[in-house]
């Protein structure tokens, strides 16, 4: 199976090359075949490799394949090596499988777009880069994938380039994530000088030998890597790009900004978990960032009217849960939530895209409504996705993954009641904004006429994703309820088990609390948006509530803060210095020279009187100087 590994990224890359070079000449059918086909084939290869990996686990726990040595300079010799272990297997599975579904959906969704081949070329390039990111055996190759997905994200957010606002959103996404990437690059330098290599297995093996628990270098390294993860995964304080990234087509939001790329930070931290384990401070920071982000983004989601922005803030919030889990050492819980989240969030974005498309590009939820009976397939799949997002107890997959995180936020060794409480509050808000979205879109009166119904190519992927959003949770059941641990068993090959505090065996009470918070949230939305909408109007009267609403709506004012603190000063300096102040110095020299020559040429007037006068004055000056000295 080793030998097949290269095919996984190579297929989408081949798709990209063909579409990029010859896309204009190909018919739409061929473009769709190549675009969606390459990723589907790649998913099949992953399935073959995955089955062999699970049925006959390799002796050392991984497959690896070296393609060539990238470069060799002074002991720095990163290789182009693919590396597949249980952790990357989960990611590769999600990327290719959900990627294939989204590509198939896009065949219909983008059918009328004039840049059909460009879309699929970028999507294929994205899948390739993302696969490289999770299959990389060394951090430099990972960085290649890391920046590559950033590029594709940029290209696809700004896909409809005629609108400058989309270009702005795209650049914002690229530049903000680049801030994190730069910190990560510095992290790579530190790692290289500490370990003499960037190969991940070597680094992880050497780290506990070289650094003692709590070593300062471990903290520095972990925080630099974290900065990269925070940028890519849109966590505090670099989260501001993701809501704007919704300018891209919906399949892009589903694939890049929900299911895969934005979870790259989660992958990075899980992959480098040994370094994070060595630094309790860094791990605490991860947990705190996760908790703060899920809290802040949750409230922002509650106030949005654009359906995609609700989902965007919700994604930020859900990744916050994953960071929280990573921070408290519940490694497998984070990855489990990543996988489940990928299913239901991709589903929600695709379904939202279908809604938006049938409503003639209407994004405003307050102008939707009443779609329950008109679009039954979309309704049911959206409902399932929402149930999973709101973690509806027992029946949804989201419950099983989020419940774990809540439990570990309290019970794990580095968990504490505050983190747990914020996570619980987050679950309450999540349920509230999810129910609000459902009610606004599908219940009530229809406010916009629907256009054509989505076709099979769009609904079948939705149904498949809905299936997984319901049932994928059953592969990992809580300790007191079935205690099935298929998923974590697989991942424990790579990731350590969460360490619990002593005497923790009362999971049931926590589950009941989670249960209550979910229903509380749903009930809140039910009251305010269905039962008694006049209450909202009443709330709007209050100036304080209105200000709070606007504050949450603007994403807690982060954009404004960054504009005032960073963007405006830099732009101001750049603009006043447009003509380069240094050049003024040289222009000054020329200016003085020219003046001097004008002045001296003035003395050469051709008039004899002036010359005689000059001679006389000169003689007097010289004589007087002589006398004085």
């Amino acid at each position, binding site marked *: 199976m080793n030998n097949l590994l290269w095919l996984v990224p190579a297929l989408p890359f081949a798709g990209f090359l063909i579409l990029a070079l010859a896309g204009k000449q190909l018919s739409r059918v061929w473009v769709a075949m190549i675009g969606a086909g390459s990723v589907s084939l790649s998913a099949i290869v992953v399935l073959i490799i995955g089955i062999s990996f699970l049925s006959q686990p390799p002796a050392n726990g991984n497959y690896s394949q070296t393609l060539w040595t990238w470069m060799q300079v002074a002991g720095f010799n990163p290789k182009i090596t693919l590396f597949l272990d249980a952790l990357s297997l989960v990611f590769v599975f999600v990327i290719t499988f959900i990627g294939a579904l989204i590509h198939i959906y896009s065949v219909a969704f983008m059918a009328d777009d004039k840049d059909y081949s460009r879309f699929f070329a970028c999507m294929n390039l994205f899948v390739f880069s993302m696969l490289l990111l999770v299959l990389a055996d060394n951090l*430099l190759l990972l960085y290649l994938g890391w920046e590559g997905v950033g590029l594709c994200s940029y290209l696809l957010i700004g896909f409809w380039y005629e609108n400058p606002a989309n270009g702005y959103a*795209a650049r914002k996404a690229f*530049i903000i994530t680049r801030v994190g990437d730069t910190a990560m690059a510095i992290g790579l330098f530190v790692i290289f000088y500490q370990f003499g290599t960037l190969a991940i297995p070597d680094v992880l093996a050497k780290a506990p030998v070289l650094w003692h628990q709590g070593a300062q270098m471990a903290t520095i390294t972990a925080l630099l890597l974290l900065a990269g993860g925070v940028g890519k995964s849109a966590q505090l304080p670099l989260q501001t790009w993701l809501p704007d990234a919704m300018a891209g087509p919906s399949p892009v939001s589903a694939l890049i900004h929900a299911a895969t790329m934005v979870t790259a930070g989660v992958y990075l931290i899980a992959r480098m978990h040994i370094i994070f384990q060595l630094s309790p401070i860094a791990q605490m920071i991860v947990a705190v960032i996760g908790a703060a982000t899920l809290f802040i983004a949750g409230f922002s989601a509650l106030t949005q009217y654009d359906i995609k922005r609700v989902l965007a803030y919700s994604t930020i919030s859900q990744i916050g849960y994953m960071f929280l889990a990573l921070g408290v050492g519940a490694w497998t819980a984070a990855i489990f939530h990543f996988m489940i989240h990928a299913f239901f969030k991709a589903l929600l974005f695709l379904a939202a895209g279908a809604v938006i498309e049938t409503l003639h590009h209407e994004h405003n939820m307050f102008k939707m409504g009443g779609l329950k009976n008109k679009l039954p397939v979309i309704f049911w799949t959206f409902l399932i996705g929402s149930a999973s997002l709101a973690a509806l107890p027992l029946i949804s997959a989201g419950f099983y993954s989020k419940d774990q995180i809540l439990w570990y936020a309290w019970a794990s060794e580095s968990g504490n009641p505050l983190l747990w409480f914020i996570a619980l509050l987050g679950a309450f808000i999540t349920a509230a904004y999810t129910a609000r979205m459902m009610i606004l879109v599908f219940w009530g009166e229809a406010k916009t006429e629907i256009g054509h119904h989505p076709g099979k190519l769009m609904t079948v992927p939705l149904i498949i994703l809905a299936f997984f959003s319901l049932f994928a949770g059953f592969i990992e059941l809580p300790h007191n309820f079935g205690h099935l641990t298929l998923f974590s068993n697989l991942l424990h090959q790579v990731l350590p088990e969460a360490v619990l505090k002593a005497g923790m065996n009362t999971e049931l009470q926590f589950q009941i609390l989670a249960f209550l918070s979910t229903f509380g949230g749903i009930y809140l939305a039910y009251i305010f948006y269905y039962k008694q909408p006049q209450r909202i109007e009443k709330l709007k009267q209050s100036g304080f509530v209105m200000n709070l609403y606007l504050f949450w709506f603007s994403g807690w004012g982060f954009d404004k803060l960054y504009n005032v603190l960073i963007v405006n000063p830099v732009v101001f300096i750049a603009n006043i210095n447009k003509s380069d102040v240094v050049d003024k110095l040289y222009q000054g020299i020329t200016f003085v020279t020219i003046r001097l020559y004008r002045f001296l040429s003035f003395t050469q007037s051709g008039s004899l009187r002036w010359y005689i006068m000059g001679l006389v004055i000169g003689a007097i000056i010289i004589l007087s100087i002589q006398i004085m000295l």
Partner: protein
Amino acid sequence: MILIYTIVILMGGGLLAFLLGQWNKSLPRWIALCTVSVGFVVLVSFWIERYRAVNIHLSNTWMIDYRHDWIPSFGISFHLAIDGLSLLLLVLTFFLGILAVLCSWNEVKERAGFYHFNLLWILAGISGVFMAMDLFLFYFFWEIMLIPMYFLIGIWGSENRVYAACKFFIFTQASGLLMLLAIIGLYFIHGRNTGIYTFNYFELLGTAISPNVAFWLMMGFMIAFVVKLPIVPFHTWLPDAHSEAPTAGSLILAGLLLKTGAYGILRFVLPLFPEASRVFAPWAMLFGVIGIIYGAILAYSQTDLKRLVAYTSVSHMGFVILGIFAFNELALQGVVMQLVTHAISTGALFIMAGMLKERLHTRDINQMGGLWAQMPQMGAIAMLLAMASLGLPGLGNFIAEFLILLGTFKANVLLTVIAAIGLVFSAIYSLRIVQKVFLGPSERSYQVRDFSFREIVIMAALTLSIVWLGLYPQPVINTAKPMIMKLEHIFSAENKNMEKENPSVTPLNMHKYLVNNKE
């Protein structure tokens, strides 16, 4: 002999183009294309032939050494030699030379003969600079590349060409004179010490000079080179010269002329004055970092496309000076990569600016926008070049900048971190280029055509090289290796002393390191 041939063929071709240009307008460009191509083929085949040997004999850095007396009474000889670094830069010279001829294929209509004469003589001068191992001869070639460039800008440039040409000439000439003084100073000091008056590079190496004098002699060389490179605050000739020069002129300026400055530092400043260089290193690195940030910020605010790209060169060349004075193999390899990849990517951007000007008759990016709809091919290539410029992994520039920063990190953590901020700025200005030119709404009523076949050939050559260098840079690294090993060897003894004081450099003791470096 191959070395002389390369120069003679260029100079001869130039004369021939000039003479035949009197009769036929299209003949000069064919002559130019042929001569440069022949040189390119000869050099590349030489490179391939010697490539294996390069890896085996790390100790013998010189591949060819040709020496003939010129003015023996003053110790001046016609001495050419190349090692891996020279060879790389020579191949680059001829590669870009071919493209320079191709990209001005239809652009030049007046005095085509004289134009190609100048073009070929600039290339000859640059080749000579990369080969000369006699300081007098080096200065001779240094001037040869200057004068035809002056004509190229002054005659075939755009509106403000005379101002730009004079500025370019005065900056380079004034700084070149300082180098001449330093060369003569070195000549006499060496003569007085040993009784042998010679300009021979190999004999001047290791001349015993008192530290104070050495510092000033080094500064003489240094100023000539950093003006050419350029580093802030000597950079202001560059935006004017680049933006006013014809396309081929900008290409050669950015791709080759700037590189002679870096080459000069690597070849002459460091080996001739190692102690003085060490003393100066922290300052040079500081200036490099200032250049990176300052150039990037200026690039962001420009509205003239060529001026914008010119300022990005200032920023990228800051990495070169930063890397050179880190004195370790990683950084120096990064510098060589940066010289090659910057020449290709920035050269390509200048060619593209020229193509846009041919079509739109403006360089003002505020008057462009939305060109993707009409020119998707050029847009895609522009995107790739912007990505190269911002250092996207997988493209050559990333290897260069990553290696430079990785090497510099060992020498000075603080400056490396500041320089890394330049990566964010480079993203800002690079994406701005693409946005302003190709994206956004289109308000043009007339049709703009996409690439012609000739233009595709040019761009394909450039983009393929940049991708190749990004995915498999080993041939360049191996070729430059012997020379860099030797250079590092000069400084390693001193580095070892420093490492004794600081066993390992970490962000935590970097301040101590910074102080030590200054002493």
